[in-house]
């Protein structure tokens, strides 16, 4: 009797296993055959570049497999809305997931979330030319240098590819790894290094309380560890004019400005420049000595640190007050002034308003907003 029971158990286990394997095989084969869209052609920027790819995956991942990196922060779930791309032909229907992320105007222009567009046929898209030069890099951490109590400088050495070609003011996306149950994310940071130091990337990062990526950088990431990033992205850069330049940034917003100023020193850029560094108290200032030194080296550069929260009885001799008030007091009245701002949306909106009040042309105000 016992023998028969064993046989029964074995038969039932064998049967279920066989059914499972058979159905899995069926599905795998079906996916290969039914969802096989063959070779599709992706036409980028009206024939500027043509890719022949296997259909069936999302536009975002198909492009990144071919070395074209569209910014993306949510891993293709359709929630971050960074991966917008103009799809001119062959994108198929607007899906229910991407609808909330697009404005009516964008829909009319054919803008789509590339993570939600599946390559099923020949596709024509248009992307900004800068994206062609975006690469994915592996890098190792050279140092994590504290600049203030909550800001650090992260210096990375590029491993593969070994150099990056960018313009001072552009940003990269850093990929954090999973830790303590927090998911892996992509976050954008402006490069504070100069383009001639092409084998390295420096970032100035402020700790965001409870921030997924900054907590990882501050607490988990160790010097010598390997990380991934992609870039360069962004259109924030010095103009080709010699117009007087007003820089306004505080905290980690200094990163692109720090790169621009050092770039100006390198190419002996003669334009007059002013840098308004807004901070709360003296302990939030950094690079002060370096910036003072730049005043001598650049010839026509004025560094104006301004503290908004410094107690009145401290021996601080620099400017005090809100950055907008200091700008109002100290901005030179010169024709054709250009302004470069980097910081939070609130700070940028307030500064743009002040500068426009002071007569700076709105089209000459360039900024890099980070939320």
């Amino acid at each position: 009797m016992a023998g028969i029971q064993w046989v029964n158990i074995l038969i039932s286990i064998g049967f279920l296993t066989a059914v499972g394997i058979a159905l899995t095989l069926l599905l795998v084969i079906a996916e290969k055959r039914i969802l096989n869209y063959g070779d599709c052609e992706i036409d980028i920027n009206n024939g500027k570049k043509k890719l022949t790819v296997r259909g069936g995956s999302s536009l975002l991942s198909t492009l990144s497999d071919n070395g074209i990196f569209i910014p993306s922060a949510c891993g293709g779930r359709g929630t971050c809305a960074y991966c917008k791309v103009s799809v001119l032909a062959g994108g198929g229907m607007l899906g229910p997931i991407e609808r909330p992320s697009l404005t009516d105007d964008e829909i009319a222009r054919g803008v789509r979330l590339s993570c939600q567009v599946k390559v099923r046929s020949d596709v024509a898209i248009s992307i900004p030319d800068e994206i062609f030069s975006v690469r994915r890099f592996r890098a190792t951490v050279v140092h994590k240098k504290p600049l203030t109590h909550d800001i650090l400088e992260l210096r990375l050495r590029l491993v593969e590819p070994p150099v990056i070609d960018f313009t001072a003011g552009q940003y990269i996306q850093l990929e954090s790894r999973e830790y303590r149950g927090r998911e892996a994310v992509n976050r954008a940071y402006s490069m504070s290094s100069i383009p001639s130091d092409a084998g390295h990337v420096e970032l100035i990062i402020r700790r965001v309380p409870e921030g997924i990526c900054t907590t990882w950088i501050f607490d988990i990431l160790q010097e010598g560890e390997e990380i991934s990033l992609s870039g360069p992205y962004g259109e924030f850069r010095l103009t080709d004019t010699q117009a007087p330049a007003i820089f306004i940034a505080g905290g980690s917003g200094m990163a692109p400005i720090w790169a621009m100023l050092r770039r100006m020193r390198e190419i002996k850029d003669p334009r007059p420049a002013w840098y308004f560094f807004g901070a709360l108290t003296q302990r939030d200032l950094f690079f002060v000595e370096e910036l003072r030194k730049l005043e001598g080296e650049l010839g026509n550069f004025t560094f104006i640190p301004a503290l908004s929260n410094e107690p009145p009885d401290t021996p601080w001799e620099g400017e005090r007050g809100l950055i907008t008030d200091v700008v109002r007091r100290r901005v030179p009245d010169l024709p054709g002034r250009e302004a470069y701002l980097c910081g939070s949306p609130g700070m940028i909106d307030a500064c743009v308003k002040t500068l426009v009040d002071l007569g700076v042309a709105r089209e000459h105000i360039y900024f890099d907003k980070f939320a």
Partner: protein
Amino acid sequence: MEQFTSSIVLSILLIFASAAFTDNILLARFLGMCSVIGVSNRVNTSLGLGAAVIFVTVVTTAMNYAVYYYMLVPLGLEYLRLITFIVMIAAVTQLIEMIIERLSEGLYYSLGIFLPLITVNCAILGLSLFMLNKPYGFIQTLAFGGGGGFGWFLAIVLISGIREKIDEKRLPPGLAGPGITLIIIGIMALAFVGFSGMIKI
């Protein structure tokens, strides 16, 4: 011989009609309600989902029939029918999802997140299990599956037609959506009770 053929055809028609009307899987058995409550606000979507369900019921009852009578019964594994049927249905639904994605993008997007609902649509498992209670041959089983699916199709299309006609803005807030849908289903189920006893198989 001719008489035999005609009696087969008649029995198939009767099985189809009884599965679709007197034993309507949705309105008489109250199976497959979740998809109905979720998707029945547009006739167009209901037509698509209903058609997919007809297809799935025909295919799954046929496959489950074959698996049950040619594999489970000879091996003495009848007690594994529930788990086997669930796995079979899940696989077939996946397959259909792929086919729909390939054939009609519009249908794929309008069914959206509800396609996986077919996988766990109890109406489909119900039809496969009820099929075992009846002494059907293979052809009759196809008619039973097709009739059951057609009954579900008919019910969801009728319900969504009524819901499209109802101006939900004029309903008390607590009744909007699932509330009014359940009331509609209840009234329609009363109407379908009228069919019961018409056909005895």
